[in-house]
């Protein structure tokens, strides 16, 4: 297991600068504007260490916010929110007594762990809902809330089909994963995927990741992990209802609901047209009725 050959170009103990295009060393990707980037989170490699949660908070200076024992396995984070942009879910599937599972799955087995994150949807409902343009699609095809614009209208919050975005009571603005927009601009891999000890979280060009993920599913099936499937890749669960695909997608081994993911999420804006048309048709009908009532027995002026 060697390091990237370019690592030897910076062999001083005090490099005293950021290694240029460091992402190439950490994940083999040179980050360029105009390309699509995302995360492939392969739950079969996740050890539930929560390094992603910590690395994210450290980089983005997010405060700790959730001090309390939940009793939900080892998940004391609960959900994604304004101050939590990575969340590791823990699902125990062992069973007790006579129901105790005896068989082990070839990879992650009987204790599911999954690092959840903003999906950076290809058709992002939060972005489509945002009335200020605060949420926009960056030159890296990621979805970011621009903090100098957001006015805290909160409409992105219910728009998100994954419960990702949240308003912070501290500053009255919406927050979510930026896919480390600032780091991407500096050629650095996002903090969570860079830290991930087992490469459960992989960062890269989305199309490359899709290919890699499909290969991974095939290989897992070959190894007997027949439950493995992709969530959010094109034409898979999660990439439904007009969302097209998710730039941050997942490899799962149980039903999506188990991980608190909707099986077929939809693009909220798809409901604008039917609603608006029906509404306007209703108004037209009512207007006709009103016109009839109003004009009856009246002189036209």
């Amino acid at each position: 297991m060697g390091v990237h050959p370019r690592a030897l170009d910076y062999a001083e103990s005090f490099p005293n600068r950021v290694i240029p295009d460091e992402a190439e060393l950490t994940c083999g990707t040179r980050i360029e504007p105009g390309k699509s980037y995302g995360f492939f989170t392969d739950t079969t490699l996740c050890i539930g260490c929560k390094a992603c949660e910590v690395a994210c908070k450290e980089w983005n200076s997010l405060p700790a916010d959730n001090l309390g024992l939940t009793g939900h396995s080892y998940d004391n984070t609960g959900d994604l929110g304004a101050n939590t942009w990575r969340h590791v879910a823990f699902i125990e599937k062992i069973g007790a007594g006579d129901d105790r599972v005896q068989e082990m799955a070839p990879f992650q087995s009987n204790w599911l762990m999954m690092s959840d994150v903003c999906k950076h949807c290809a058709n992002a409902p939060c972005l489509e809902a945002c009335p200020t343009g605060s949420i926009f699609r960056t030159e890296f095809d990621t979805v970011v809330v621009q903090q100098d614009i957001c006015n805290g209208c909160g409409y992105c919050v219910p728009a998100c089909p994954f419960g990702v975005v949240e308003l912070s009571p501290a500053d009255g603005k919406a927050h979510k994963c930026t896919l480390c927009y600032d780091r991407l601009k500096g050629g650095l891999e996002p903090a969570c995927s860079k830290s991930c000890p087992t490469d459960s979280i992989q960062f890269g060009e989305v199309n490359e990741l899709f290919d890699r993920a499909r290969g991974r599913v095939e290989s897992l099936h070959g190894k007997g992990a027949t439950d493995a499937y992709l969530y959010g890749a094109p034409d898979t669960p999660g990439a439904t209802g007009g969302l097209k695909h998710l730039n941050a997608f997942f490899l799962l081994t149980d039903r999506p609901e188990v991980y608190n993911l909707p099986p077929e999420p939809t693009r909220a804006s798809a409901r604008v047209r039917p609603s608006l048309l029906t509404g306007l048709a209703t108004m037209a009908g009512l207007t006709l009725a009103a016109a009839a009532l109003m004009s009856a027995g009246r002189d036209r002026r």
Partner: protein
Amino acid sequence: MRGFREPATRDWNGETYYDLASVKPSPFDWKIAAYVYIAGLSGSAQIISTLANTLGDGRDETIVRNGRYLALAGALLGPPLLIADLKTHKRFYNMLRIYRTSSPMSFGSYILMGFGATSGLTALGHLLGGSGREGDGSRPRARRVADMVQVPAAFLGAGMSTYTAALLSATSTPLWASAPRAMAAQFGTSAMATAAAALSLGEQISGDPENCRRLDGLAAVAAAGELVASAIAERGRRQVGTADTLREGATGSSYKVGALALGLGVPLACHAINALSKKPSRTLSVVGSLALLAGGMAMRQAVFQAGNKSAERSADYFRMTQRSLEGPEPRRRVDRMVEDTSRRG
């Protein structure tokens, strides 16, 4: 289903993630619900006023006046409510930074702005136009301006009456998202019914009892429509499995008692009795109107509360997302830079 592999094809057995919410409830509280109510009422009032001005005769003058003033009042009350609900109030102006057809909040802001401007002009024209006739029988200039602006104002009023339903439906909140069409009809009919009721009350105070009959008739037609729309919405939600939060608990009670029984049952009964009787009862008309007005508000508040509650019930959301929801793909996709570049490439 496309591309689903084991175990995603296995039937969902109701399992959730520790019953934790899968989506987040909107941060909208009673203020936005009240805004939806006011927007609908004032928007529809503008429509009725315009119709009365266009189709009626001099006896409708109070309807026209009251409608225009109501529209302006709504347009003036709305923005403070909306701004008060922003978590960073000082940046309210960013609502006009961009326009997005995909966002009811965005085009709604423009509708509200347009409606405010046009309603302001109609109301101002009306105010300055005095009795509506110059000495020579011609329209005063101010009234002519009002009459010109009233048509776009009425169209924007139609928008005001229903875009708020799109605002709710275009979310992932199970209750709101699972019956977009019926809810739009519900909001629209309620807007028209409450506007008619408000104007009818106005006529009762100072106006023509005959106008009351007409307006009560309109209110009854709209309320009947709302009843049908509510039933369709309810049925749709039950099919999806998201109806519970509007049926159960305090919210369910307030919806059933406030919005349905009081808001629709009572006025329909009052207006029906009045319609059938030779000498309509003034009291029944007033009671019916007041009940409608109260019921409209109760309906908005209940729908908001129940919606937010449904967002916290992951089972509701998972039931809703077991299959694709109604509604076609939007015709115009929000453009995506990356596709553009890839096409160029």
